[in-house]
């Protein structure tokens, strides 16, 4: 069994949703993760806060960000176990992040520290 990271990308990190809407997404996210965990396929996950975000660039130039210049921002990730990338993709399809127009979930296999990958 392989391990995959599902990375949530939001098209516009500046958008602020209403508290009621946030609550609905929160429940949907928890139910989605709970469903993966109920199949014993959940490893870990977390949300990434936009507050205090910084981007450290070439020559250690620090900017507040990643908003403005960069269109897509990472809002969080989860790590799952899956038999194949197709199974990991099926998990990703359930993510409530995808309800936002332009948002994406990127599916990436996690390198095994076996010296080959």
């Amino acid at each position, binding site marked *: 069994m392989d391990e995959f990271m599902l990375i949530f990308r939001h098209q516009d990190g500046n958008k602020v949703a209403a508290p009621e809407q946030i609550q609905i997404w929160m*429940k949907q996210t*928890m*139910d989605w*993760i*709970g*469903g993966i*965990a*109920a*199949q*014993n396929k*959940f490893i870990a996950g977390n949300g990434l806060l936009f507050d205090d975000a910084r981007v450290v660039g070439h020559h250690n130039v620090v900017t507040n960000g990643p908003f403005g210049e960069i269109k897509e921002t990472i809002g969080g990730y989860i790590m799952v176990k899956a038999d194949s990338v197709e199974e990991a993709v099926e998990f990703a399809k359930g993510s409530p992040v995808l309800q936002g127009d332009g948002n994406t979930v990127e599916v990436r296999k996690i390198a095994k520290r076996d010296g080959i990958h």
Partner: protein
Amino acid sequence: MGVLLCMDKGELIPHLFRTEYRKIVSVLCKHFGFGQMELAEDIASDTFLAAAQTWPMKGIPDQPTAWLYNVAKNKAKNHLQRDHIYSKKIFPEIKNIPVAASEAELDLSPQNINDSQLQMMFAICHPSIPPEAQIGLSLRILCGFGIEEIADAFLTNKETINKRLFRAKEKLREEKIEIALPPLPEIEKRLETALRTIYLLFSEGYYSESNNKTIRKELCIEAMRLCNMLVENTCTNKPEANALLSLMCFQSSRFDARIDKKGELILYEEQDRSLWSAELISTGGYFLRCASVGDSLSKYHLEAMIAFWNTQQEDTKEKWENILQLYNRLLQIEYSPIAALNRTYALSKANTKQEAITEAEKLKLETNHFYYALLGELYTDTDSATAKQHFQKALSLAKTHADKQAMQKKISKF
């Protein structure tokens, strides 16, 4: 003593074995050290053997527990005297053999019994022995479990358990582990194993397949007593320990409602709720509040909160939404098939049956009879043919009499 009086003669010794064996062994081990653990176990077993041989002939003594303590004390004394004389005769040249140890009386006061058990619990949970051996040894020494019962609890055979326990005891000797509470930072680490053991003991009583309600209840009470010892000691009074105690209080509040006179299991929905113990529910609430300090959220916290919602009689949306979210979090900390199934049931109540069916089918717990029982339940209102099929499949997989009976009842309703 109340329990003792209403017990059949045949049940008394097994009962005392459950409650007193570990106390006697703990005190003896504390007295002799881990180096003589087998001796401590032998003396304790001999004491019960003496009771089994004497009581049927001479009648049960007025104070059975005191009788056992006395016999254990004498056996320990005899052994030490023999040992002392032996060493003196064989090694007459060695002077100053400590006399104190042989003459010191075995201290079976309530305080020493309590201290010895608590210290024993932590000594057994020493990191030098693997966790499954720690739990096995705890079940043996602290809970008086038979080798076969331990094998059942670990889903393995007697030989494996015997070997495991033998190696663990050897390790305790080699490492010269003291029967004492470890220093504070170490306590927290070992507490985890101690709690797991207590939880296992409780589950053994609560979900046991035995029809003997008295013995099952006793196991639960013993588990709660051990946990209470942890909560009463300032060094071990941690949020997780309170959470576990709270969980056990909430669960046992239904003890009298969930088993009928014949020892048959009564399902949650069919229980007479007036038999739920309001006192245990409120004690559970008390310990849950005690557990809600600090920033740790253990699986015991989550399970205690789920158990709390299960004591709420009204079937509200709020109740099921809370239970669902608690299971969502519990499964992220620790997966178990039963939590996965319960989570899916909560999903059907909080969201929709259709969503729950889709999610249930992903679980693929095809050897588990509860899996098919859940599917049967979810299909019941919409597709009775499919529901019946699932209940039949569940019946064919059910192992215990109570489970089979519950499935038969479901099938007969179609």
